[in-house]
């Protein structure tokens, strides 16, 4: 059927018209929709996309700051930097090559004499699945391929730059230890940062390149933030292949500050030499396995020298320590040289502790002017206690008790004060006067020195005993039941003794017994102190009772010398002793080197020029030889230095430690064989070495 042509024409025109009108409307709607979407992206969301764009084509490159030096008080370098030639490669440039840089690396391998496989490993970026060696830094940082290369080789690489595209040889600063083993533990060392350290130190996160290191011990660790400086930041514009197109902004690094210490390198060396010599002299009769000597400035707590033997050269950490060396420095055979005996070592103080016990007695009612019995032995709480040589002195003054180091006088003090507190079963709060006074001298807690991992030592009392008992009761009670079958096979009587002991500890281990209080009074038993604590306590006696926090650092100077920040001395506490008692102790201690236990060691020493006040100590510990102590200060009339010396298992104090201290004083003042005095006028330097604007250091050395 055919429709009329007119009708169909109208319908065709109608449909076409309305359809086309609708399509035009549709076009308008779609144009509006696209423009709306465009508006949304480019107006409200523009900032968001700008940030994404910046992340896209900006790359941050961290420019490490030069680490500050560590100087002695005269400006002599203890730790500084040296330059080393390193070969590094541009990650993106090499990876962008057709063979991924294979040819360049293989040519390089031949001339720097590093296996190609190692170079390839070093070119990998570190990741969870990638084993070391790999590159821990950003791919925008030059990747280090070889360190410490010969200048000849570096020159060859630089001259034939066309053969080694993307590879550069340049100087890089690395840490140097010009003094070798001297003061090793105190200076510390650097190691690559761990994830934990990165998490803990917020300020490092924005600064960390992945290749730089943090101080891990000693001054390097404590003053890491100041020595480190502030890394610079270079913002690079990059394209979609990661190729650098331009430098968008650059923030220059701020070099780390130089740390000027109280240490005098010459005194430090003299102390180490004297200590080593003294330890050698004690052998082979004594093991003399380790030792420490601390020299403090009594007027401010400054650490003039701190020796700890055995020691090691921190340079072994440089460039990654190998496993063998690492095992060695941690081993007992090598004497654990990483440990600073001065700060981390604890030993019973022996008779050097009597200054504290005397103070406790005097502050608790015993008169300085009375006489006290010094028999060869005393019988207390059913046990007999001997003087050191078993000799009695009759009735003596307290001064004499210090000079001659009479134990029995102090045994009586210890016992009587224990009884006064109520003995085994105190009622109410016991005074614990002996322990309180020890804490007053700074024992039992860290001195607050600016060195890491410091020990607090141990001052035992009733509370400590109970805590200790609670911690060990279970094991002791088990032993009390089962005994020691393995020991019983070889030595039944010893096993029986141990079993009885375990039973005792299990049942009444919390009791603070008379023998413990008695041993405490002469610095034996469970009392433990560090050489630094003892030096610091004697420094307090010397200066009239002010206990300073020892400070190694004296000042921080900017790399261009424009600003010097002094590190002020910090007082830990005042020793709770009257001036009269302090003066009395000073007089007694000054006599020790003249007529007391230090007389032999100081025979021939010009005491009329520089009087030395001190106290010997000979500390016993189970299954160990006696340890030798000498704690002292000088000049006795106008004190400047406190010197504490310890030789572990080194014999009596007068025999080993006191002569070492004497040698240190001789070095400082230039007596005897030592020749010239190491410190001008025998006084620590008050002026600071100058850091010149060009970064060089003006030493005060004559």
């Amino acid at each position, binding site marked *: 059927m055919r*429709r009329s*042509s007119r009708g*169909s*024409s109208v*319908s*065709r025109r109608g*449909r*076409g*018209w309305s*359809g*086309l*009108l609708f*399509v*035009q409307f549709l*076009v*308008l709607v*779609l*144009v509006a929709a*696209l*423009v709306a*979407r*465009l*508006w949304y*992206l*480019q*107006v409200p*969301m*523009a900032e*968001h*996309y*700008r940030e*994404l*764009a910046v992340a*896209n*084509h900006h790359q941050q490159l961290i420019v490490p700051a030069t680490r500050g030096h560590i100087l002695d008080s005269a400006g002599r370098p203890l730790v500084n930097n040296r330059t080393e030639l390193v070969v590094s490669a541009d990650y993106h440039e090499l990876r962008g090559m057709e063979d991924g840089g294979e040819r360049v690396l293989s040519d390089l391998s031949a001339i720097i004499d590093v296996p190609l496989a190692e170079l390839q490993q070093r070119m990998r970026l570190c990741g969870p699945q990638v084993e070391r060696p790999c590159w821990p830094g950003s791919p925008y940082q030059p990747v280090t391929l070889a360190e410490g290369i010969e200048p000849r080789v570096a020159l060859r690489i630089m001259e034939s730059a066309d053969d080694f595209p993307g590879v550069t040889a340049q100087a890089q600063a690395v840490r140097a230890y010009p003094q070798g083993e001297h003061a090793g533990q105190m200076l510390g060392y650097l190691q690559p940062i761990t994830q934990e350290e990165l998490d803990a130190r917020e300020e490092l996160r924005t600064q960390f390149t992945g290749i730089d290191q943090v101080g891990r011990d000693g001054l390097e660790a404590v003053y890491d933030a100041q020595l480190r400086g502030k890394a610079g930041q270079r913002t690079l*514009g*990059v*394209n*979609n292949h990661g*190729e*650098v*197109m*331009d430098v968008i902004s650059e923030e220059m690094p701020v070099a780390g500050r130089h740390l000027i210490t109280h240490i005098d390198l010459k005194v430090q060396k003299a102390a180490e030499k004297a200590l080593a010599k003294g330890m050698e002299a004690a052998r082979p009769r004594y093991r003399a396995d380790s030792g420490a000597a601390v020299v403090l400035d009594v007027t401010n707590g400054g650490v003039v020298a701190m020796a700890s033997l055995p020691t090691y050269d921190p340079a072994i950490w440089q460039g990654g320590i190998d496993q063998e060396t690492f095992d060695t420095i941690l081993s007992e055979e090598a004497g654990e040289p990483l440990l600073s005996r001065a700060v981390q070592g604890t030993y019973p103080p022996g008779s050097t502790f009597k200054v504290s016990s005397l103070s406790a007695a005097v502050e608790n009612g015993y008169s300085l002017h009375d006489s006290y019995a010094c028999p060869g032995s005393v019988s207390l709480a059913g046990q007999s206690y001997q003087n050191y040589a078993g000799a009695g002195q009759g009735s003596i003054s307290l001064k004499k008790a210090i000079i001659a180091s009479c134990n029995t006088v102090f045994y009586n003090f210890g016992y009587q004060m224990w009884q006064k507190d109520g003995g085994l079963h105190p009622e109410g709060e016991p005074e614990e006067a002996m322990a309180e006074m020890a804490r007053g001298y700074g024992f039992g807690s860290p001195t607050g020195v600016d060195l890491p991992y410091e020990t607090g030592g141990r001052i035992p009392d009733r509370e400590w005993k109970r805590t200790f008992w609670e911690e060990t009761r279970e094991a002791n009670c088990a032993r009390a039941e089962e005994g020691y079958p393995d020991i019983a096979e070889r030595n039944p009587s010893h096993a029986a003794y141990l079993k009885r002991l375990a039973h005792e500890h299990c049942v009444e281990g919390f009791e603070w017994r008379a023998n413990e209080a008695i041993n405490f009074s002469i610095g034996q038993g469970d009392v433990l102190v560090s050489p630094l604590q003892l030096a610091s306590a004697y420094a307090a006696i010397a200066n009239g009772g002010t206990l300073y926090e020892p400070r190694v650092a004296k000042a921080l100077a900017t790399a261009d010398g424009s600003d010097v920040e002094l590190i002020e001395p910090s007082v830990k506490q005042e020793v709770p002793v009257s001036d009269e008692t302090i003066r009395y102790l000073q007089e007694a201690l000054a006599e020790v080197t003249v007529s007391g236990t230090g007389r032999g060691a100081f025979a021939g020493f010009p005491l009329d020029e520089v009087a030395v006040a001190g106290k010997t100590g000979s500390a016993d510990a189970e299954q160990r030889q006696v340890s030798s102590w000498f704690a002292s200060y000088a000049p006795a009339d106008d004190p400047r230095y406190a010197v504490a010396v310890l030789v572990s298992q080194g014999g009596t104090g007068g025999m080993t430690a006191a002569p070492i201290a004497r040698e240190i004083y001789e070095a400082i003042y230039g007596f005897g064989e030592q020749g010239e005095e190491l410190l001008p006028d025998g006084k620590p330097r008050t002026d600071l070495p100058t850091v010149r604007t060009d970064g060089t250091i003006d030493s005060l050395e004559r």
Partner: protein
Amino acid sequence: MYTRPGPSRNLGHAAVAAAGAARRFDWVLVGSVLTLCAIGSLLVWSATLPGDGGDPRESIDALVRHLAHVGVALVAGLALATVDHRTVRAYVPLAYATSVLALVLVLTPLGAVINGSRGWIVVAGLQFQPSELAKVGLILVLAALLGEPRDQEARPMTRDVLFCLLVVAIPLGLVATQPDLGTALVLAAVFLGMLTLSGAPLLWVAGMLLTGALGALAVWWFDLLEPYQMDRIATLMDPAADPQGSGYNSAQALIAVGSGGFDGTGLFQGEQTHGRFVPEQHTDFIFTVAGEELGFVGSSLIIVLMGVVIWRILRIAQGCDQPYPRLVCVGVATWFGFQSLTNIGMCLGVLPVTGLPLPFLSYGGTAIMANMLALGLVLSIDSRDRGFK
């Protein structure tokens, strides 16, 4: 005196005819297209500027080639505009046959694979993309078939529609095997648009539109299920669209456009563009260069100009008395509209990535030639068909 008409006189006639045609051109349409071409040239120049240390001649070469493409295509388009569209009508079967043959040639050793798609013919160092010209060929043949139904019917009947389906299926199938999903979609959209406005039986129109809508819905549905799967399917069917992997292009395009802000970074100043973060930024993603460097101001102008072009073509269609010329205009408008929408929608992150150039702006000789020929057809229809009203 009897004077024989000489060749010079004939030429004179032709010149007068051309001038008359030119006077009747829709200058709003031509002006919009020329503005788009000018903007496109600047964008191509900026998009091909090399990074630091690169050879600046690279971008000058690209610009010169692009301007040559535009110039040659413009001359060809305007030449076509002066030809009576009824003359062109006589060559429609030949145009269709040629475009199908060219699509077949792609499969022969003359064909070349670029960006994973076998869509090119290389002859004597010159590259052609037959699928672009096939769009023009298909529009012409569909306009002829739907506008002049057999047996003198006033409007296309089922039989005509079925024949059209066959005519569409051949180039569409060839394009899909390249594979070039984008062009296949354009061909389908052109067919749907022309069929809808042809007066064909409503059932067919509704059925075809429904099929198209269901297809789109299926895509949308897939997209909802697993975005990455969708991306993979898209990449599989059209590797040229996303050479660096799923989602990268789209994300970088959004960053480029969004970071441009209201007034843009300024021509040649775009850091995204300069760093070549968006792949194919001188061709398929040319709009991102506009987005970053010209900002909302410049890019919305492009959208509006594109809208004006399509609106003017539809207006010309409205002025046609005859179905054939009207359907030619509808086909061209659908093509430009659909291709602009998918291209800009992809750059704005609202439509999936398909490798389609933006008409009149993107770099690419064959594409610009096809655009200009289509414009020439429309202008020819405008100047003649309206004249006979």
